């Protein structure tokens, strides 16, 4: 089965068989029929046949409760090892409201646990399905199963969808966050600090810009000319921080990755510019969510 980003349920991909309850119902009908024949009960025949007819109609209703739905996978959110990876699916319903449609992930457990949703007529519902990935790394998605036994439970209709996409699972960050590595500046090839922000060292003057602090304003000049002039100063000494494999010595591989992940998240939260150096990969110092994800992905894939 090819992975698809979305799947519309049609006759081609909905399967339907009688459920165990359906087989039991069949036996019940047989019993009713035998009693009706033996006691020559006209109304017994009517009852038996009405139930048989309703069961046949329910087969169509069961199939119809899946038919026409479109399953669509929303962008995946990376998870940390040990946490549930959550797939968010949007179920679009072009027809009448669907009751009792269950969604689940095929992870090998039987019966597959299902989350039931009610999908309004011509509406959309999002369904969150969580699963535990086997470890850090990039994983294929499990099969999604949508199942319905509505209305009488006599038939089980289901579809299987292999959603296109891969789930990142990052190493679990160590908690609590270990202290910063002391060697970050001492490393020999550290470049001089970049000066960008608001520091104290005087460098020159320029016209006032919104956001300059009162202390930056050259008040003497302002009093003389009536123009607001600001001092331009050097920013705080911001070193580029390097997170390195060797800084987490004395631990096994997974613990090292955990510690590096914790540092990376902490550095990102503190707004530092940081880089990551692994034995086989290096990420230049940078900031922001994309950088954090790139680093965590590198750690996850290591």
């Amino acid at each position, binding site marked *: 089965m090819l992975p698809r980003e979305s799947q519309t349920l049609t*006759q081609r991909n909905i399967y339907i068989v009688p459920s165990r*309850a359906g087989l*039991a*119902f069949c036996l*019940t009908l047989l019993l009713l029929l*035998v009693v*009706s*024949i*033996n*006691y*020559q*009960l*006209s*109304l*017994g*025949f*009517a*009852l*038996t*046949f*009405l*139930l*048989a*007819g*309703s*069961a*046949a*109609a*329910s087969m*169509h*209703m069961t*199939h*119809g409760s899946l038919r*026409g739905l479109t399953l669509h996978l929303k962008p995946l959110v990376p998870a940390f090892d040990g946490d*549930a990876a*959550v797939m968010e699916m949007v179920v679009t319903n*072009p*027809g009448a409201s669907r*009751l*009792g449609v269950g*969604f689940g*992930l095929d*992870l090998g457990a039987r019966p597959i*646990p*299902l*989350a*039931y*949703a*009610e999908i309004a007529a*011509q509406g959309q519902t*999002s*369904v969150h*399905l*969580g699963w*535990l990935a086997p470890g850090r790394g990039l994983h294929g998605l499990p099969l999604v199963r949508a199942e319905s*036994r*509505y*209305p*009488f*439970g006599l038939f089980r209709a289901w579809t299987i969808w292999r959603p296109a996409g891969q789930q990142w699972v990052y190493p679990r960050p160590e908690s609590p966050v270990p202290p910063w590595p002391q060697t970050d500046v001492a490393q020999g090839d550290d470049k001089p600090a970049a000066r960008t922000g608001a520091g104290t060292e005087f460098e020159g003057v320029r016209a006032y810009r919104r956001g300059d602090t009162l202390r930056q304003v050259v008040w003497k000049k302002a009093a003389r000319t009536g123009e607001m002039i600001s001092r331009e100063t050097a920013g705080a000494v911001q070193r580029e921080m390097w997170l390195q494999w060797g800084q987490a010595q004395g631990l096994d591989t997974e613990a090292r990755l955990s510690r590096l992940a914790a540092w990376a998240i902490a550095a990102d939260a503190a707004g530092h510019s940081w880089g990551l150096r692994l034995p086989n990969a290096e990420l230049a110092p940078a900031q922001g969510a994309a950088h954090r994800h790139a680093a965590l992905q590198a750690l996850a894939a290591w």
Partner: protein
Amino acid sequence: MVTPVTDTVAPRHPLARSTWRAPSRDARDTLFMLALIGWTITPHLFHLPLWVTGLSLVVLVWRGWLGWRQEPLPGRATVLGLLGLAAVLTFTGEKTLVSKDAGVTLLVVLMALKTLELRARRDALVVFFLGFFLVLTTFLYSQSFLTAVGTGVSVWGWLTALTLAHIPAGRPTIRQAAGLAGRAALIGTPVMIALFLLFPRIGPLWPSGNTATRTGLSDHLELGSVADLASDDSIAFRIRFDGRAPAAARLYFRGPVLTDTDGHEWRAQSLFGGRSPRSNGLRSVNVEQRGKPTAYEMTLEPTQLTWLSMLELTPPQSAGRGVDASQGVQALDGADVQPLADLDLQWRTRRPITQRVRLRATAWLDDRIVGAQPADLRENLALPPQFFPRTRAWARQWLHDHPGRPQQGQAIDVDGVVQSLYGYIGSGGFSYTLSPGAYEGDPVDEFWLDRKVGFCEHFATAFVVVLRAMGIPARLVTGYQGTDPDPVDGYYVVRQSNAHAWAEYWNPDRGWVRADPTAAVAPDRIERGRAIQPRPGFVGNAIDSLSPGMVERMRTWRETLDNRWKDWVLGYNRNSQFDLLKKLGVSTPDSDDLGRVLMTVISVAALFGAGAAWWDSHRRTPGQRQTRRLASALRALQVHGVQVAAHESPGVVAASLRRRFGTAADGLAARLESMERQRYGPAGDAAAPDWRGVKAQARALAVALATAARAGGVTPARASP
């Protein structure tokens, strides 16, 4: 690791909590199911022992209380204990556990007790199937129209409960579930009708001993048994005469003829067996032919008995008269009953009557059986030695005192004696009542000489005893007498309450003569053919005082409905199936034809289902429909690079056309824009969208573009900015 997110809890208004707390969905579903179980077992409570009613009610209410309070259910030991108790009670009451009544009793109790094990909605499947079976058992006792309506509600309810159990998310209302269940049942109804009409009806797969309740005459009589029957207002059979109906006083329907008595009980001689010496003698019934024939048609209710009560006298074909085909008794519609008569003109069938049967027969109301063998007559003189001493003495005395006593060498003047006995009954202080009270000791002596209060059976048995004591061969005949006064659909109704007993005595010159002593004491009973009516109940009294005759009229309506119901639904059998096939054009229908027609119908229905599913899968939302139509209308422009995306409305497409092709696209764009206004503009412009115009314009534009391209000129697409 699955997280349902759609299950939301509606915030409750803070004030609502203090007044009335809506039950949780589980509690509500449980209560609904308990009410449904109550409704389903209600018809059974009328014929089951009282303790069943009590136990079921207590268990259901208890379970309802637990469900409401959301308290834990009792343990397995309690349930098993109650079940054991029920089994013991059933066994002591019914003396068995395998009879029909015992089975139904256990089923009802089981159903009630199973609710105590009802933990999850989905665990309830056993209860559902038990429920459907319980509905079926209702039909063992009654298949009336009212029962059908009541059980129809039950079935709907059970399907609703089943639906509720399979909508796990949210809080669907019961009305919603009932609508869905009703829809499934409604779609299933044509299947039901087809199967009902065409599913081959076959006889019982194995003989079931005690099938339904047997009401009607039997081959023995104890005092009080006819009175029991007479309080039963159900219909025994219906009769329609070809010509005018004879007077009610002449309508005697001859059932079992009871010859042997042990003093308490009167028995018929076994039929068709070799015991009776008469099987060696006459081979055919001797009937003295008098009067004109009366042809009639009878519709018998399924009494589960083998006795027939034919109009007196209905001789068999072999009775030695000028035989024509209309004689004897014939089953209509090919019913497999084979009516047979013996020498006493008792009619029986080979097998119990399990379905409605129509019979056609001819009676001679004035006929009499003649030519009895001396051995037969001796049997009709036998009296058990220790019984009726006072009545015998009285009879001898009466014969001695009254005219008609045998002189030396002369025979008794039988008719004269019988007349004098009529006189004695008429003037001797006898009274006729349905409830004479119990007779102890020697019932005939007590009745004839002391209490003189009785019902037709008392009069008839005493009469036979007196005649036998006088040396006149006599026997007891049971059957029905009279009909309801007015015909329903041309049929006169004969009820179990028309059950009657009379006597026959042997007159050497005339044969067996009917003597009905009841006529002497209660002529009204015979002449008007009116059965004794038990006194109407309180409601009946009230209705009757408001509008005289109302009760009677209502009964007539009800019975007309009932008759139609029985003819069309309950009486639908194998023969009706073959009739249906004949109407469909099958000349000699058999079971294979039924199967073929049924398979054809089922195949067509399946095709219909598949068609509906196909149609449903091509269902589109209005937006999707519009996009598809737009794309297909603009297909001519596809070669020029025009694509309609799913999110583009006609107006958006028009704007892009104008951008690309400039004024050349004006006509098409204008039409698309008007379509846009129709769909999204303010109300008022309600004309249907002009798809044909759009298509034509698109083709024209495509042609124009192609011409321009061929001319080698600059394409309009590049010409426009």
